[in-house]
């Protein structure tokens, strides 16, 4: 076997996985994708957190309602019980206090032989006629009859589901047979496949834009996304709904679309509107005296847990405030009220930046997921990637308490490569140093660690003493003094990191460290060009 497991081992593993079912899920079963899609349509589809497999328990809803009501049989409990019974193919009779099965699992005698209509039986129905001839029932023309020609009054649970999920398709299942709603006659051709209903749902999931676009074209969901009525669901007042420095993901938009499917998309529209307003403010650059002040603030809730200690996506951004008065985009805001962010580069295209920021966010998620479990559990803070208002990509790291630090990159191949490399370095640092606190000083610690990697602490202390003596011999503000002072501060930052003195956790640590690294790179460039 390709997987290298014996049959016995496979059985054991399967049974072990099956045991991880919850809320009454007693079995692990093989199913077709179409069947899963149908179960999803019915509802109650969740993911088992232990195995990652889908689960479709409906009894749990009923149990939860019963628990909430203190065991009292309330209307809510009753409704849930009815729903469950319908799925079981049973109906509760109030007068007799008994359940009546509507399933086709009867016993008796089947009619044998053939008829002109028998050819429309399914293979399974013909087999049932052949192998259970004395169960009191028989299939004819695809319909189940009791002996004597009395048609069994039944719909399968699927057929009831199909009726309820496609009420306006012009056809309904009656007594197990598909009939035309207008004529009441049996539909013998073009039978509504079990999975035809599911097909639409799958299309919505697989290709939401095409599906919703089709609804718009049919006038069923006019103005669902076409906010400005210009015939395009992709533009609002001529601007892409994806513009504006928003980190709203396609997946999030899809979720909002699905949620608002029945209320004409109000929540999706409000989200787009919010994003678009931000975009217009940003692109117009404000009015009058405040013309140069722009903002890349990101609005909205990104769906991430507020209680998590670590997140790869900041919920909204108070960062990315720039003043473009001199045309260079100087940062005006502070991340924690005390420290000033640094801003490295400017210019590029928003769509590309947005796409790259999303890729970067996914990379962060993947890198975090590959961490050792114990270290992963200790992570606190935030590392995230944003599109800036000037179409750049920003990597932001920090937390609410100590502030956030932002590094901005060009939204081109070199920029994104550098950003990814920096993120890799951050994650590598977390893993090698077991430093799981992503605070304002984190970026500085990463920089410092890489600068002094391999150098022992005693050696650094000796060098620090030497630099302090050296400083005393230079004239303050002379080039030699500044150079020695920068080297001294770098060593002090590294020693603070190694001894956890407290200074290493501040946003100042990051600003000093990264600014120093940028300056050093610039000096190298100047030296190499000379």
């Amino acid at each position, binding site marked *: 076997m390709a*997987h290298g497991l014996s*049959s016995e081992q496979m*059985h054991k*593993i*399967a*049974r072990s*996985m*099956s045991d991880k*079912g*919850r809320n*009454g*899920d007693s*079995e*692990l*079963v*093989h*199913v*077709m*994708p179409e069947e*899963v899609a149908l*179960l999803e349509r*019915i509802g109650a589809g969740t*993911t088992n*957190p*232990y*195995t*990652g*497999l*889908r*689960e*479709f*328990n409906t*009894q749990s809803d009923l149990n939860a309602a019963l628990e909430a009501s203190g065991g009292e049989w309330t209307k809510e409990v009753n409704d849930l019980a009815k729903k*469950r019974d319908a*799925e079981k*193919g049973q109906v509760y009779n109030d007068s007799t206090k008994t359940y009546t099965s509507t*399933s086709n699992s009867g016993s008796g005698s089947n009619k044998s032989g053939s008829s002109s209509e028998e050819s429309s039986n399914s*293979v*399974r129905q013909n087999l049932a006629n052949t192998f259970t001839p004395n169960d009191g029932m028989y299939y004819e023309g695809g319909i189940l009859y009791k002996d004597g020609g009395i048609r069994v009054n039944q719909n*399968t*649970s*699927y057929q009831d589901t199909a009726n309820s999920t496609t009420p306006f398709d012009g056809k309904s299942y009656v007594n197990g047979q598909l009939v035309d709603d207008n004529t009441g006659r049996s539909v013998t051709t073009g039978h509504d496949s*079990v999975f035809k209903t599911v097909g639409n749902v799958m299309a919505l999931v697989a290709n939401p834009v095409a599906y919703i676009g089709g609804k718009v074209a049919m006038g069923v969901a006019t103005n669902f996304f076409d906010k400005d009525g210009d015939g395009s669901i992709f533009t609002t007042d001529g601007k892409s709904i994806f513009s504006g420095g928003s980190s709203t993901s396609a997946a999030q938009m899809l979720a909002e679309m699905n949620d608002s499917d029945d209320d004409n998309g109000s929540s999706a529209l409000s989200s787009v509107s919010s994003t678009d307003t931000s975009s217009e403010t940003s692109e117009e650059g404000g009015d009058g005296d405040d013309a140069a002040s722009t903002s890349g603030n990101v609005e909205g809730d990104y*769906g*991430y*847990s507020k209680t*998590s*200690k670590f997140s*790869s*996506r900041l919920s909204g951004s108070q960062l990315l405030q720039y003043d473009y008065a001199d045309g260079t985009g100087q940062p005006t805001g502070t991340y924690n009220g005390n420290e000033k962010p640094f801003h490295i580069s400017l210019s590029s295209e928003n769509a590309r930046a947005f796409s790259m920021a999303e890729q970067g966010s996914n990379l962060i998620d993947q890198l*975090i*997921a590959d*961490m*050792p*479990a114990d270290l*992963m*559990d*200790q*992570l*606190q803070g935030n590392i995230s990637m944003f599109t800036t208002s000037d179409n750049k990509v920003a990597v932001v790291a920090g937390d609410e308490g100590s502030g956030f630090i932002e590094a901005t990159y060009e939204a081109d191949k070199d920029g994104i490569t550098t950003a990814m490399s920096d993120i890799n370095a951050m994650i590598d640092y977390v893993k090698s140093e077991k430093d799981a606190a992503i605070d304002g000083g984190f970026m500085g610690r990463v920089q410092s660690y890489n600068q002094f990697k391999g150098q022992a602490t005693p050696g650094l202390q000796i060098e620090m003493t030497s630099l302090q003596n050296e400083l005393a011999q230079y004239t303050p503000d002379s080039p030699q003094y500044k150079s020695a002072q920068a080297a001294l501060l770098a060593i002090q930052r590294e020693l603070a990191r190694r001894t956890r003195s407290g200074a290493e956790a501040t946003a100042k640590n990051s600003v000093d460290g990264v600014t120093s690294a940028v300056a050093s790179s610039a000096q190298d460039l100047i030296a190499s060009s000379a």
Partner: protein
Amino acid sequence: MAFSAEIFGPNTGTSIKTRKETAAIADTLSEQGRNGDSMMVHASPFTMKLLQDIGGAGSFNPKTGMLEFYNVDEAMKKRMGY
């Protein structure tokens, strides 16, 4: 755990690494399906009844020993050359 429920599912106290390993095992099991069965799900008796009602086989998969619900009509037609 300190991770987004949106990405990694509900907080269970099980690390993502463990969950990924379990998911890989689940994939291997799913690959043992036949006649169109390509997925596995956790199922209650109610769910299994429903799957049978819509034409699921309800037989046992010989490789995993788990119940399987491929569409009998489709499988029979295919086998009989319809």
